[in-house]
C-alpha cells in the first residue's frame, strides 16, 4: 500500500496541469458558444492523449495504452479545472465501449466518433411497461423483412429520447426461442418514421424520461450488434458500464460537503445546527458510509489496475447498492435539517439541475431524486439477489416452473 504516485506519474500529472492552463479558452476563442468551446477543447485533449485515452485513434479516441492510474489523474485534474473531459453520456459511456467489444468494423467507424464528440446523442431502449426487473421478458419485437428489421412495441424510462439521434436497445427477434435467447441488440435512428416519443413526468416535476412507441419502424439489417439472439450478453456488458456511471464516490463526497454547509447555515434553537450534538452524530454516521464508499472504490480501482479484479469482486457487486443507500441516508439528514422548508416544491432551476442543491428547494428535489438511482440500472432488491446468490453462494430463489 502506497498512496503516493511514483515520479513518472507525478510527471504525467504535471503535463496534464500544463495542458489545462489552456482552459478556459482565451481571446477570440472565448467568444465562441459554450458548446463550441467545449468541443474545441475536448478535441485538443484527445489530440494530447488525455481524453478517451484508450479508445483507438481510428474511432476518434487518443489511442494510448490503457493505464488506469493515468485515467484517474486526468479525471482528478480535469475535474479540478472544470474542463471538459470524457462525456458522461450514454453514447460515450455505454454505447462506445459496447461497440468496441461487440460491434462490426463499419459500426465502430460510423457510430463511435460522433458519440464521443457528442455530435450524435444516444438513448437506451431497455425497459418496457411489463419488463422492469424482469428485463428479459421484454416484448418489443423486431421482425426481419428483407434487409430491414421492422420494430413494433413500446419502451419506457428512456432518458432524453426526445433529444437523442439514436437509440441502442433490446428487441425480441426470435419469438420462438427461450426468453433470454430471443433478444437482439439493435441501433435505431430516432428520426425513423413510426417513432413517437412522449415525455413522462416524474414526481420531482421534471421530465427527463420518456416513453417511446414503435409502429412498423424500419431499421437497416446491418444495425444489429453482435449476433441474432445474443443481445442479452451484449447488453450485460453495457449494464456494467451504467453501474459504473452511477456509483461515483466523488459526487457523494461533494454532496456530503454541501450537507455540512447546510448544517452550518441552518439555525436550530438559536444556534447553528452543526453545533447540535444529535446533528453532529448523524453527520458523522453518514460520513462513515461516504468514507467507506470512497475507500472501497480505491480498493476496487487498485485491484483492477493490478489486473486482479477478482480480489475485489464482492465490493464491486455491492458498490451500486452501497452508493445509492448512502446517498438516500445523506438526503434524509438534509431533509430533516430543512425543517418546514421541506414543504416547498422544487423550482424550475432545481428540476433542470442548473444549480447544485444548495437552496432549500434544491435539497427537496435531491431528496426525492435520490430514489431514482436505487431503481434505475438494476433496482436495489435485484442487487440484493445478485449479492446473495453470486456474492455469497446462497441457494437460488423459489421460482415458479418455467412456462
Amino acid at each position, binding site marked *: *500500500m*502506497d*498512496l*503516493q*504516485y*511514483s515520479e513518472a*506519474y507525478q510527471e504525467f500529472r504535471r503535463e496534464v496541469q500544463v495542458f489545462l492552463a489552456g482552459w478556459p479558452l482565451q481571446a477570440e476563442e472565448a467568444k465562441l458558444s459554450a458548446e463550441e468551446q467545449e468541443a474545441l477543447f475536448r478535441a485538443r485533449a484527445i489530440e494530447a492523449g488525455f481524453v478517451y485515452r484508450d479508445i483507438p485513434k481510428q474511432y476518434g479516441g487518443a489511442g494510448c495504452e490503457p493505464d488506469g*492510474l493515468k485515467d*484517474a489523474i486526468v479525471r482528478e485534474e480535469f475535474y479540478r479545472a472544470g474542463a471538459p473531459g470524457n462525456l458522461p453520456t450514454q453514447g460515450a459511456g455505454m454505447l462506445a465501449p459496447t461497440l468496441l467489444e461487440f460491434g462490426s468494423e463499419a459500426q465502430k467507424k460510423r457510430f463511435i466518433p460522433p458519440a464521443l464528440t457528442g455530435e450524435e446523442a444516444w438513448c437506451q431502449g431497455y425497459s418496457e411497461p411489463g419488463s422492469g426487473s424482469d428485463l428479459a421478458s421484454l416484448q418489443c419485437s423486431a421482425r426481419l423483412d428483407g434487409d430491414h428489421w421492422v420494430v413494433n412495441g413500446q419502451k419506457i424510462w428512456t432518458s432524453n429520447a426526445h433529444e437523442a439521434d439514436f437509440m441502442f436497445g433490446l428487441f425480441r427477434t426470435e419469438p420462438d426461442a427461450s426468453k433470454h435467447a430471443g433478444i437482439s441488440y439493435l441501433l435505431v435512428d430516432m428520426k425513423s418514421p413510426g417513432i413517437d416519443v412522449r415525455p413522462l413526468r416524474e414526481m420531482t416535476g421534471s421530465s427527463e424520461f420518456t416513453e417511446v412507441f414503435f409502429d412498423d419502424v424500419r431499421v437497416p439489417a446491418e444495425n444489429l450488434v453482435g449476433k441474432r439472439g445474443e443481445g442479452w450478453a451484449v447488453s450485460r456488458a453495457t449494464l456494467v458500464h451504467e453501474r459504473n456511471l452511477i456509483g461515483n464516490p466523488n459526487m457523494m463526497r461533494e454532496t456530503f460537503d454541501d450537507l*455540512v454547509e447546510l*448544517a*452550518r447555515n441552518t439555525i436550530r434553537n438559536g444556534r447553528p445546527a*452543526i*453545533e447540535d*450534538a444529535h446533528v*453532529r*452524530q448523524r*453527520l*458523522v*454516521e453518514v*460520513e*462513515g*458510509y461516504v*468514507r*467507506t*464508499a470512497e*475507500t*472501497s472504490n*480505491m*480498493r476496487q*480501482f*487498485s*485491484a483492477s*489496475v*493490478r489486473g*486482479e479484479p477478482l*480480489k475485489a469482486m*464482492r*465490493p464491486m457487486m*455491492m*458498490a451500486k*447498492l*452501497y452508493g445509492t*443507500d448512502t446517498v438516500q441516508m445523506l438526503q434524509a439528514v438534509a431533509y430533516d435539517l430543512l425543517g418546514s422548508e421541506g414543504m416547498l416544491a422544487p423550482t424550475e432551476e432545481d428540476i433542470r439541475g442548473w444549480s447544485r442543491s444548495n437552496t432549500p428547494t434544491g435539497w427537496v428535489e435531491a431528496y426525492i431524486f435520490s430514489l431514482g438511482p436505487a431503481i434505475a440500472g438494476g433496482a436495489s*432488491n435485484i*442487487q*440484493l*439477489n445478485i*449479492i*446473495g*446468490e453470486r*456474492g*455469497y*453462494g*446462497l*441457494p*437460488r*430463489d*423459489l421460482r415458479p416452473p418455467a412456462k
Partner: protein
Amino acid sequence: MDFGLTEEQEMLQETVCGFVNNECPPTRLREIFDSGTGYDAALWGGMAEMGLAGLVVPGAYGGAGMEVLDLALVAEVLGGAALPGPFIGHSLASLAIALGGDEAQKQQWLPGLAEGSTVGTVAFCEQGSAWEPEAWRATRRDDRVSGRKLYVPHADVADLLVVGVEGGELLLVERNGDGVELLGMDGIDRTRPVFQVDLVDSPCQVLCDGAGIAGRVRDAGLVLLAADSFGAASKLIDLSVEYAGTREQFGFKIGQFQAVKHQLARLGTDIEPTRALFWHAAYAADHLPQEAAHSAALAKSHITDRAMSTARMAVELYGGLGFTWECDVQMWFKRAMFNRAFLGTPEAHRERCAALAGW
C-alpha cells in the same frame, strides 16, 4: 499509487489464519471460553513463536519492525477466530514503548515484549468511561503512581502495564510491583477478560515521550478494534450464510427465501466495503499524520457499530438456536460488544470526529 496489500501481507494473513484454524478451532475456542480464563499459554506461545508478539517492535530490539496496517491485518484474522489472548493490550503497550520510550526503556522492555516472554497491556479507562488522555486523573508523584484504572484487558497475565495518568502521561508499571491490586470485572467477552487495577503508591517509570504519543497509541488501538470487528462480523456472516444454506423450513432451505437472502446480502453489503475503511485508517496511522486521528475514530465508530448490528442480526437469523449459550454465534457477538465499548463508544468517537473536522 496502490491501495492494496503486498504479497507479504497477504501471506501474513494466510499464515495466521492457518495457525488459528489449527490451534484454536471453534471446539477449542469453546473450551477456553467456558473456562473463563480467556488465556491459553500454548496458544500465546505459538503466536509469539510466529513473531506476532513483536510485529511493531523495531528490528533492533528483536521485533519485526512492521506497521499498524500489518498489526490490523493480524487483528482481522484474530477477530475472525475470536481468538482468546492478550494481543491487543500487548500490541499497544509495545507500540507505546517503541514510539515513546527512551533508549534505556526500549532496551529494558522491548526484547522481552517482542519475544512474548514479557506480556504487556494498557490501563487507560477510568470511572465514567474516561478513555481519552485528557480525562485521565490517576496521579504520579515522582516515581510513584496512584489511582484506579478500569477495563484493563488480561491484566492477570500481564507483566507490564502501560498506565495513563493526569496530563496525558504514560507510565510503565510492573504488575508484581508494590501497591498493584487486581480485581476481575467479570467482563462479557470471555476471550479478553478485563480487570480493575488499583494503584497505591506503586513504583513506575515515566515513558520518556508518553504525553506526546498517547494519541497515536489510542489511534492504533481504534484501528485494531475496527479490524477485529471487521473480522468478527465477516465470520458471523459466513456462519449465517452456511446455516441458511442447510437449515430447512417449509420444505426449503431458508436461504431460498428472499426475506433471509436479502437480510444476509444487506449484512454483507454493510460490512465487506468497510475492509477498505480500516485499511485506510491503518495506513493513515503510519503515513498520514494529518488524517490519522480522524480516520481511526471514524473507522472505529463505523465498523464496531456495524459489527454489533451484524451480530444481533446473526442471532435472529439462527432463530431459537442463536439465542442459546451452545450456539457459537454468542462468542463473536460478545467479541463485538468488547470492541464497541473498549477505548470509547462509537458515539464518543463520532463527537471527536466532528470536533477534529472543525465543526
